[in-house]
């Protein structure tokens, strides 16, 4: 944005404004845009989810308000705003009031590091990924506030579950991303995307691969496993089925949201859907190349950018549109998968969820980190790191060997861990059936 604004003001109009003014203008513009976009994302996602899941259930879904029901979320929003805001008498008023804000704020902040297109990142932090996940955990505080302040047992249970779940699933999520970070050696999201140029093989790994913007990490075994783990963890963090335990409507009514009504309830929903959107987006960014796709790189090469100040702004626009299109397409595809899972799966129980996270996902990510190390060692390291046997291999051979080895490691790890996990699940907490029957029937006379 800075480049565009700078180009517009200083080059096109020739006003020669100082850099900080331009930075201020561009940041304000970006913030305004994001705050306008985020709620609309949420509105559209609710509509999208309802329509998609209705189709899965042989229904039509909302189709009454506006063309094909497109205005349904607006109507819902109006309903939310006009509803009475009820605060329970026994609730802690201020905490009850603050909780939705605390939940929503971090999700908005997370937009700060999300790159939408080439050169279209609000802030290119060099620790963007860390920022993203650090901020996302803050909303757990808000959830706990909501649960505690409501003085409702269901809310309390829901908040406990939510916090436990979010804290637990941060770990596999971050660990799975760690593997990717090891591949690239950077925490900057922009650089992560740029590393995914290429055609099924990242051009960073094998020089000379044509750049079609398809060198995504998902095409590597490490990235694939990391993606699976990350997506599962994202489901848990975003409280999506089968991990929507904190707000399991059939068990604890609405979890921490039980005592909220009106727009406060709406804010929780907003936070949740925005978080889902962001998680899908970040999954798209990290594993599916974000805005990378055929044509974007070619266009961006001809656009105004720090590397190429003489470019044409038309290409900026084109590259931007194409990049945003790619990103949103990927994001919505992931969201569709989330909806699909919601349509297809029951939810787990809270202890099973914990077991799954701690006993299956975390070991799996740890194995994946080992694979990532192998990958890095085979592809990047040379004699100076003490790896000599790959010295004479061509890059493509290195890549092939690394691919095969990591694939084998990951598949074996997955199957073995799944078996072990299943066995442990079967054993753990197992009471001998006869004994159990005896305890039950002992009361009979």
């Amino acid at each position, binding site marked *: 944005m800075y480049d565009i604004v700078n180009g517009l003001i200083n080059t096109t109009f020739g006003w020669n404004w100082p850099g900080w003014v331009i930075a201020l203008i561009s940041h304000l513009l970006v913030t305004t845009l994001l705050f306008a976009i985020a709620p609309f994302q949420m509105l559209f996602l609710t509509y999208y989810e309802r329509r998609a899941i209705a*189709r899965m259930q042989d*229904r039509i879904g909302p189709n009454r308000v506006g063309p094909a029901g497109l205005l349904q979320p607006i109507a819902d929003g109006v309903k939310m705003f006009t509803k009475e805001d009820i605060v329970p008498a026994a609730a802690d008023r201020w905490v009850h009031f603050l909780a939705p804000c605390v939940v929503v704020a971090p999700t908005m902040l997370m937009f700060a590091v999300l790159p939408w297109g080439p050169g279209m990142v609000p802030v290119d932090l060099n620790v963007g990924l860390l920022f993203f996940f650090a901020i996302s955990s803050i909303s757990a505080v808000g959830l706990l506030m909501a649960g505690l302040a409501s003085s409702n047992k269901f809310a309390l249970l829901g908040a406990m579950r939510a916090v436990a779940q979010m804290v637990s699933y941060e770990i596999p999520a971050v660990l799975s991303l760690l593997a990717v970070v090891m591949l690239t050696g950077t925490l900057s999201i922009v650089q992560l995307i740029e590393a995914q140029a290429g055609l099924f093989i990242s051009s960073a790994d094998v020089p000379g691969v044509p750049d079609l913007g398809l060198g995504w990490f998902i095409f590597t075994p490490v990235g694939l496993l990391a993606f699976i783990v990350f997506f599962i963890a994202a489901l848990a963090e975003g409280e999506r089925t089968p991990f929507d335990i904190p707000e399991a409507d059939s068990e604890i009514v609405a979890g921490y949201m039980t005592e909220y009504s009106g727009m406060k309830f709406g804010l929780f929903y907003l936070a949740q859907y925005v978080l889902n959107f962001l998680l899908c987006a970040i999954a798209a960014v990290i594993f599916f190349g974000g805005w990378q796709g055929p044509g974007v790189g070619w266009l961006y090469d001809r656009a105004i950018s720090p590397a190429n100040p003489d470019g044409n702004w038309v290409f900026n626009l084109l590259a931007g549109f194409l990049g945003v299109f790619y990103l949103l397409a990927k994001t919505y595809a992931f969201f569709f998968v989330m909806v*699909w899972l919601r349509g*297809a799966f029951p939810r787990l129980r809270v202890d099973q969820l914990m077991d799954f996270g701690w006993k299956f996902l975390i070991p799996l990510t740890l194995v994946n980190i080992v694979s990532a190390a192998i990958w890095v060692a085979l592809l990047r390291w040379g004699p100076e790191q003490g790896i000599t046997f790959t010295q004479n291999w061509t890059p493509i051979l290195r890549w092939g060997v690394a691919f095969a080895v990591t694939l084998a490691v990951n598949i074996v790890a997955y199957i073995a861990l799944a078996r072990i996990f299943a066995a442990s699940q079967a054993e753990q907490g197992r009471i001998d059936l006869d004994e159990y029957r005896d305890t039950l029937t002992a009361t009979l006379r």
Partner: protein
Amino acid sequence: MTVKIERGQIVTVERGKRTARRLPGMGLLDGMAVVWKHWAGSFRKNQGFNDIHGVFTYEYPEERPKLPEAYRNMPILLYDDETSHELCTSCFQCERICPPQVIHMTQAKDPATGKPVPAVAEFVIEYDACMSCGFCAEVCPFDAIKMDHEFELSTADHQKLTVFKEQLNRPISYYERIAPTMWAEVRDGAMKKLQGNIKRRPDVIGMAPNLAEKIAARRRELEAAAAAATAPAAPAAAPAEGRKLTPEEKAAKLAAIKAANAAKKAGDTVEPPVAPAGAAPADEKAARLAAIRAKNAARKGEAPDAPPVVAGEPAGEAPPADEKAARLAAIRAKNAARKAAEGSDGAPVEANVAATEPAAAPPAAGAATSAAEAATAPADEKAARLAAIRAKNAARKAAGGGSDAAAPTTTGNVDSGGPGASDDAALS
């Protein structure tokens, strides 16, 4: 594992995975595949009963469900399109069977005589408490109450759900449209009963009140008929020629029935005048009807296994099942006897007077009253007066219709055909 038993077996259901699955998580993928199939198939409509894919939503206000004929929602009352007469005779069957007791009705009364007629004066159904069981339609012997297909009854006004006769009335053609075969099954019987009932309904009683113009038309016809009757006996021949459904004839027929009844009672004790030859066909019909009715009354009077029950007999002697019937018969017989007693004085006079000049009716009636007073005990005074009024009416109508020969004819027929007559005679 299975165990054989008679006509089947006991099967222990197979738990868990049927096949050794390749990878953990395949069951989840299977489920996703099923959902995907539904998602992909949902861009077309569900094809019907044997299709399990595709959207099966009814987009309701645009797309109306096709209701089967038997569908029942709320009860409605039917009336005949042609005559605009309601089929309901207020027999109270539906009110009695209604499980939540939401049907209320009052029977129509002849304003002149106060005698109940087979029509309903007011009919109320509390739709809000109706449970749509359909019993009322099932028990109705006249097929007057049927179940509607209209289901959009929601309203913000609770009071609206107490539905009166005006809102309940639907033409038969409406019901025929929503349930053609079900109506076809009962149509003939229902229409026959309706024709019978119309004959017993004076004035505009029993006509659908929401058809104001029809009622007005009918009123005009009745008035015209009355006006025509004041003219000399010239129109007397008219009913004989005018074949069907002219209002005059209908009125005449009605009058004939009335006169016949009165005369019949009179004729029980007093030998009627000789029936003139060549009676009008319209009168003949009425006479036959009266005869049938009398016969029926007689049949009811008979206990199945005993000779005709005499009024004076104590009810207890009859077998319990027939007790009620016997008592009913006794009451009816007593009434008839009473009427006969007074009729012996009044009716011939009346009949004669009616035959010659209508203006003489009031004195005749007066004579009848006085005769009745003289003849009966004080307890029967009321009944006597009632009978007198009825006789007066009959006389007036007989005069109005111009069917001078009606009364004698009928009495003759009845006398020969009705065992009820002898019954009555015995009682008196």
